[in-house]
């Protein structure tokens, strides 16, 4: 055994500390902390966007893996000391964060790729980086004919194999709103769908947390669910029997947006990060397996695994006004809890 005294330990520790500092001083001209959704998004942004940004602007990104609601909660809880520089959000949490004043304004002239993005996708406080398309997913081996409409989900044989999820997520909320419309309801009147949910809840295969849905589908616990094309493409890539269906009233679309956190330390780097995220190079790479993200850059040619043919198709899909949804969401969540619990 070697003898080691306290001085040796200190020398060793100091050397290690210095070694840790050296590469930082030698390389990076800049750094950035960006929030990112855990899972595919984190893999995609780490694997594609981070190297691209390092190459083009020599910026190192640290990712903080958080769901949209968690990002907003974290920034609110930090009360003016931003835990990261950039958000990535769905429309619901984005509208809530906007209302709470958590964003820096966006100057589109600082984004070189701004002209490559369809009009309306870069706003005063948001840069759209990706579109999501929501509809019905089913197992083609379990049903002779696919479900065609939102109302079909509440009919046999689909209802017995349906996985229900509530208003916690954006895709869940907009799907249930469309179901309400199928039963003559609307955003202002959700009563019809709550009546249907109450009837259906005893028959459905599962009522579960949104994050559990893909796993339940893969395990054969459920064979029908409402979800986005991204999830369908990922499950298909893993060999799961799953197909996406656009309901007869149209698929739903919403945007995923990047924002600069109010009071962020690295605003200049945040612009470079967002600009790289919407560049044709990154968007083209992110649409492929295993990421399957729908691009919004007009220069990108869409691959055939995405379930949509062109970016223009998005403009014909169903969209929702989240400033009308958010004030009612707490009540809907409470109502859903009460209707579905045993």
């Amino acid at each position, binding site marked *: 055994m070697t003898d080691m005294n306290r001085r040796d330990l200190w020398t060793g520790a100091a050397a290690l500390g210095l070694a840790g500092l050296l590469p930082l001083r030698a390389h990076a001209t800049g750094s950035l902390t960006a929030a990112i959704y855990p899972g595919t998004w984190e893999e995609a942004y780490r694997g594609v966007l981070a190297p691209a940004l390092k190459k083009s602007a020599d910026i190192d990104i640290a990712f903080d893996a958080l769901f949209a609601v968690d990002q907003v909660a974290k920034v609110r809880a930090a009360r003016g000391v931003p835990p990261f520089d950039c958000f990535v959000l769905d429309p619901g949490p984005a509208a809530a964060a906007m209302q709470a004043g958590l964003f820096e304004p966006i100057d589109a002239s600082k984004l070189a790729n701004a002209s490559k993005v369809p009009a309306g996708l870069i706003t005063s406080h948001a840069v759209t980086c990706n579109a999501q398309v929501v509809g019905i997913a089913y197992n083609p081996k379990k049903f002779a004919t696919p479900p065609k409409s939102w109302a079909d989900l509440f009919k046999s044989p689909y209802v017995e194999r349906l996985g229900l999820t*509530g208003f916690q997520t954006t895709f869940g909320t907009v799907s249930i709103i469309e179901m309400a419309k199928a039963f003559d309801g609307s955003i202002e009147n959700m009563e019809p769908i709550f009546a249907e949910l109450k009837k259906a809840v005893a028959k459905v*295969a599962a*009522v579960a*947390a949104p994050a*559990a849905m893909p796993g339940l589908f893969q395990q054969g616990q459920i064979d029908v669910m409402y979800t986005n094309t991204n999830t369908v493409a990922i499950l298909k890539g893993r060999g799961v029997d799953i197909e996406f269906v656009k309901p007869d009233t149209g698929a739903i679309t919403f945007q995923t947006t990047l924002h600069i956190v109010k009071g962020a330390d690295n605003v200049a780097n945040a612009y470079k990060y967002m600009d790289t995220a919407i560049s044709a190079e990154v968007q083209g790479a992110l649409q492929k397996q295993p990421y399957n993200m729908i691009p919004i850059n007009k220069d990108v040619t869409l691959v055939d695994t995405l379930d949509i043919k062109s970016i223009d198709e998005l403009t014909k899909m169903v969209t929702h006004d989240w400033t009308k949804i958010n004030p009612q969401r707490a009540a809907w969540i409470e109502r859903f*809890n009460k209707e579905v*619990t*045993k």
Partner: protein
Amino acid sequence: MAGAAVASGGMGERVDWRLAAPLGLTYLAFFAAPFAILLGISFYADSEQTRLGLDSWTKFYGDAFYLKVIFDTLKLGVFAVAATTLLAYPLALLFRGVGPRAQRVLIFIILMPLLTSVVIRTFAWIVILAREGVVNQTLIRLGLTVAPLNLLQTELGLVIALTQIEMPLMLLPLLTIMNQTDQNLVDASRALGASKWRTFFRVILPLTLPGWIAGATLVFASATTAFISQSVIGGARLVYLPALIWQQSMVVYNWPFAAVASLTLLFTVLAGITALGWLGRFAKTN
């Protein structure tokens, strides 16, 4: 207490107090202060935290749905304690009877679940309990059932999973105390004509009760707050306090209501632990 130590001139006790100070101050800064903030937030009447009032408290305790959530959370803790107890005692008795080498193997098997993350253990249970999972496939092949049973998203499935996940917490204190009990007392009981069952209930059980209380406290506190297992295996039809707190704080942003639910969970678990502590004292005096 420190004052009393100084007055009695006990040097040793004064040192004890100082050694405990870093941890004590840490608790004060990182537990007592946030707790005070939590308590403060619960007295806001609206989710924007602009107006003071008892609205959040009256809404929570005036609604039968939320009272049922408290009851269900408590019930889950009791079921988990009961199930782990029924399975842990036979194993602990076996542990006591075998040699040191077999004991080491048993300890390793008992500790193994603790070496994997709770997330992995929970997702493993999805694979086991699902419609096309191991349990259902076995039952169907054996001809015991025609259609697959619904085990996921049920309280039964959740209790089964929690029993496995929490088992080490019950077993470890129980094994320690089981090893300390004097074999002579058991032998004396048998020699005086008591049956095996009578020996168990009149000698072994009372002697090992402190270990069981420690285990039951850990299992109860852990099962009632097991957010991941509850939401993944239990599903959305079974609402427990942890999931409700997450929903209210992270999705709805109604922090006062979430604070009320958090305090309720805290005091519910504390009440359970206190009850178990009383049971221990009651057992000792008898």
